[in-house]
Structures are given as structure tokens and as C-alpha cells.
């Protein structure tokens, strides 16, 4: 299947759908074209290594994007082995399950990732790359994001405490998120169970932490507190969070910007 070659290269991003014609190029190609405005990185990809199998169906694929850092770059907080298994096995499993579901269900073609999540709601969830990519050595948020955090939580320390508390009081498997709430127009910390994504509540995720046991068990065994603390202090990529914040502000009006007076 061509998506697997797509998955190992960093050219194909998770949000792009590759259309693979099953007929040789000489025949008239039936392609399903879905303009997707919310996916600026959409790239049609012709894969001629695919020999005609006599099937005229067109598949939409999601590929597994590489994390933006080497797998051992997060040591000593998260071992290479953990990332190999978490990203390579769990995440890949979710993407494969997603592709399998897409194969079966025609009406899901052409949906953006966001729409898919809302429609399927916890069924074979693939949004996780969204979150894993957030992990990178970073210390503190800056500028706009920091200001908003201070406005909504009082101080960055307070936010950190609340986030850690949420992570430690989550029962079972789940995620902890920093989201921008659309209606309340402020940042908030939410907990979701299993693989639910706050997008289903129409909130925009800024940053997240996986507290399923598989994400820390190999390195920390049952010491969830240490994992959560290390994550908050050393692993969060505030740069990525800032990027998401900026994008989120395109959808949520947080008020007039403070323009400095000359």
C-alpha cells in the first residue's frame, strides 16, 4: 500500500491525503477531488509504482508523520524506547485503524482531520500526532501565550500546578489539555478520558499530555507524578503551543491587541 511509503518519509504530512490511482496512467484517471481549505499542506501524490489491480476505487490515506526531533532527543525524560513504541507502534496502530475505517466508510472521505474527529468521536482515534509533536525541550511560554496564561490562571506557576493536579487526578486512561475555549474565550485545562479530543466540544487544543499508562510506564513504571512533573518542566514545546495559539486566535476573538503607544 502506498501509504506506508508515505508514512516513513517526512514529505507526506499527516494532514495531506494522497490519492493513489489504481489504473495505469494511460487510462482515464478517476480521482476524487476535495478542495480542503483548512489543509494548506494538501499535496496530491501520484504513485506509479502501484500496478493496476483492476480496482477502480480511490483511497484516501493518512500517513504517520515523523516527530520533529530524533527519537532519543527527549532523554533522560523519555527514553528512545518509549518513543519508538508510543509513536511507532501505538500511534501507527491508530493511523492504520483510521485508514481501515476510511476504506470502509465512504462518507468520511474528504473530511478534514477536525471533522473526522467530531464525526467519529472516540472511534479509532488518530489525532494524537497533534499532541506528540508538542513534545520538545522548552522552558517557558513567551509573549502572547504567556500573557493569556497569566490572565486566565493568575500566574504560570499556578497554571503548572493546576495542570499537574489535573493529570494526577485523572482516573484511568486519558489526556490533559490546555485548550482555548471558543465560547468562554479563555484558556482552560480539561481532562478527557481514553482518546476523546476537546475538538468534539468545539474547543481548540493548544497543548496536551498523554497520561495513558503506555506513555510513561517503560520509563517511570507507576511513578506518574514524576512523569508529569518532568513533562511540565522539561518536555513541553511552548513554541509549538504558541503556533497553535496564534492559529486558534484566528477563530476566537480574544479582544483588541494592545498596541504600544509610541
Amino acid at each position, binding site marked *: 500500500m502506498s501509504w506506508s511509503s508515505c508514512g516513513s518519509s517526512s514529505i507526506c504530512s499527516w494532514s495531506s491525503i494522497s490519492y493513489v490511482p489504481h489504473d495505469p496512467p494511460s487510462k482515464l484517471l478517476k480521482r476524487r477531488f476535495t478542495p480542503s481549505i483548512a489543509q494548506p499542506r494538501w499535496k496530491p501524490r501520484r504513485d506509479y509504482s502501484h500496478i493496476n489491480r483492476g480496482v477502480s476505487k480511490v483511497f484516501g490515506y493518512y500517513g504517520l508523520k515523523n516527530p520533529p526531533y530524533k527519537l532519543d532527543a527527549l532523554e533522560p525524560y523519555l527514553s528512545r524506547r518509549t518513543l519508538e*513504541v508510543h509513536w511507532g*507502534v*501505538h500511534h501507527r*496502530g491508530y493511523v492504520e485503524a483510521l485508514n481501515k475505517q476510511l476504506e470502509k466508510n465512504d462518507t468520511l472521505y474528504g473530511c478534514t482531520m477536525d471533522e473526522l474527529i467530531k464525526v467519529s468521536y*472516540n472511534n479509532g482515534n488518530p489525532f494524537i500526532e497533534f499532541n506528540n509533536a508538542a513534545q520538545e525541550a522548552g522552558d517557558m511560554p513567551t509573549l502572547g501565550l504567556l500573557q493569556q496564561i497569566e490572565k486566565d490562571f493568575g500566574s504560570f506557576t499556578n497554571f503548572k500546578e493546576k495542570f499537574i493536579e489535573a493529570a494526577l487526578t485523572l*482516573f*484511568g*486512561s*486519558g489526556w490533559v489539555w490546555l485548550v482555548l475555549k471558543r465560547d468562554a474565550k479563555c484558556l482552560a485545562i480539561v481532562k478527557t*478520558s*481514553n*482518546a476523546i479530543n476537546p475538538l468534539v466540544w468545539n474547543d481548540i487544543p493548544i497543548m496536551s499530555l498523554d497520561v*495513558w*499508562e*503506555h506513555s510513561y*510506564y*517503560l520509563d517511570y*513504571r*507507576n511513578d506518574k507524578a514524576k512523569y508529569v512533573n518532568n513533562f511540565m518542566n522539561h518536555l513541553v514545546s511552548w513554541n509549538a503551543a504558541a503556533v497553535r495559539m496564534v492559529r486558534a486566535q484566528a477563530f476566537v476573538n480574544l479582544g483588541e491587541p494592545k498596541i504600544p503607544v509610541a
Partner: protein
Amino acid sequence: MALRTLLTRKNLANSPMGMLGLRGLQTFSLPDLPYDYGTLEPAISGDIMQLHHQKHHQTYITNYNKALEQLDDAVAKGDASAAVKLQSAIKFNGGGHVNHSIFWKNLAPIREGGGEPPKSSLGWAIDNHFGSLEVLIQKMNAEGAALQGSGWVWLGVDKEFKRLVVETTANQDPLVTKGPSLVPLLGIDVWEHAYYLQYKNVRPDYLKNIWKVINWKYASEVYEKECP
């Protein structure tokens, strides 16, 4: 008064009595395993058994005791909202303690009868209801593997209708949350901590192998008590 509480208070079958608080509040302590950690290999590694028992189960007990104390306080003070707020912690940690206590009794080393298929009334009931033991095992494995997130898969008996059931529960919910007349015979922990170090994410392999150390004798005893 304390002595009477000692004698009459019904407590969990295998939770040794902890210290009695001033008001007779019973706390719980970690039950000992009737076998060594390493004796369930290669189905479940000794590492996992030790962590599971000494760390996870102990944490549930500690937090359960804490929640019970807080609940006791709230009830004594008549603080209804605090009492209700504690319910989820009690369900989670108390359920964790109950479930794991049953789990340890559900397992036995192979040389002590682990894996030996059930005989007499339970064996007959399984054949009657499911067709054969293999079918039951397939069913439980399928449900266990399909469970999303954390939870348990159970073989239980409905003591009202005298019927065997296969159920799953989420997180640490005990089997009774699926039906008040359900009594657990066998429970398999499918939280990731129960298998991750050994099987990584391949939960089906864990489920396939755990049957080699399942203690059917205990399940038969419980069944015979409920359905004589």
C-alpha cells in the same frame, strides 16, 4: 464496642484487618499473595507482579483509606456536598482494591493448579452456557482486547438468575456496577500496567497467555457458593 465491631463488621474476604480508628473506622491493608512474584512466569513476569501488587494495589489501598477518612469526616459534619464529591475517589480506589484482591486469587502458579480447566458444576455450567471452555476463553479475550482504555473483563454469575455472564467494566468499576446481582468469578485486569512491561501494546498476547495461570479452583468455589 471496638471488639464488637471487630467481630461483627463484614469485611472483604481477604483484606486483613487494619487498625481500627477511634470511631471504629476500618482501614485496609495490602493482602499477601499466596504465591511468589516469579512463580507465574512466563505468563506474567515477576517484575510486573511485584509492581502491580506492591505499587499499584498499595496505592489504591492508601488512597481508599484516605478517601474513607475524609468521607467519615464529611458525614460526621453533615457536609453532603463533600460526601458526594468523594464518591468518585471511593469508587475508583475502593473498586481498585476490591478488583485486585479478587485478581490475586484468580491467579495461581502452574504447579499449584493454574490453568487447569474447571470441573464439576462450574465446568458443566460453562459447557452448557457457552458450548465449551474454548468458546468462553475466545469471548473473554475478544471483549478484553476490544476494551478501549483501561478496565477489566469478568466472568461472573448472576445469582438471581443463576446464569454465567461475561462483562467488561471501565477503569476500576467493580462488576456490581453492571448489575447488582452479579458476583465475580474471574476478573482479568486489562489496564496497561498489568501487561505493558512484558507484552508492550500487544494486549491479545497477554490475554492468550494469562489463561495458563488462571485459578479455576477459586472460581468453582465461588460459583458453588452462589449456585449450590
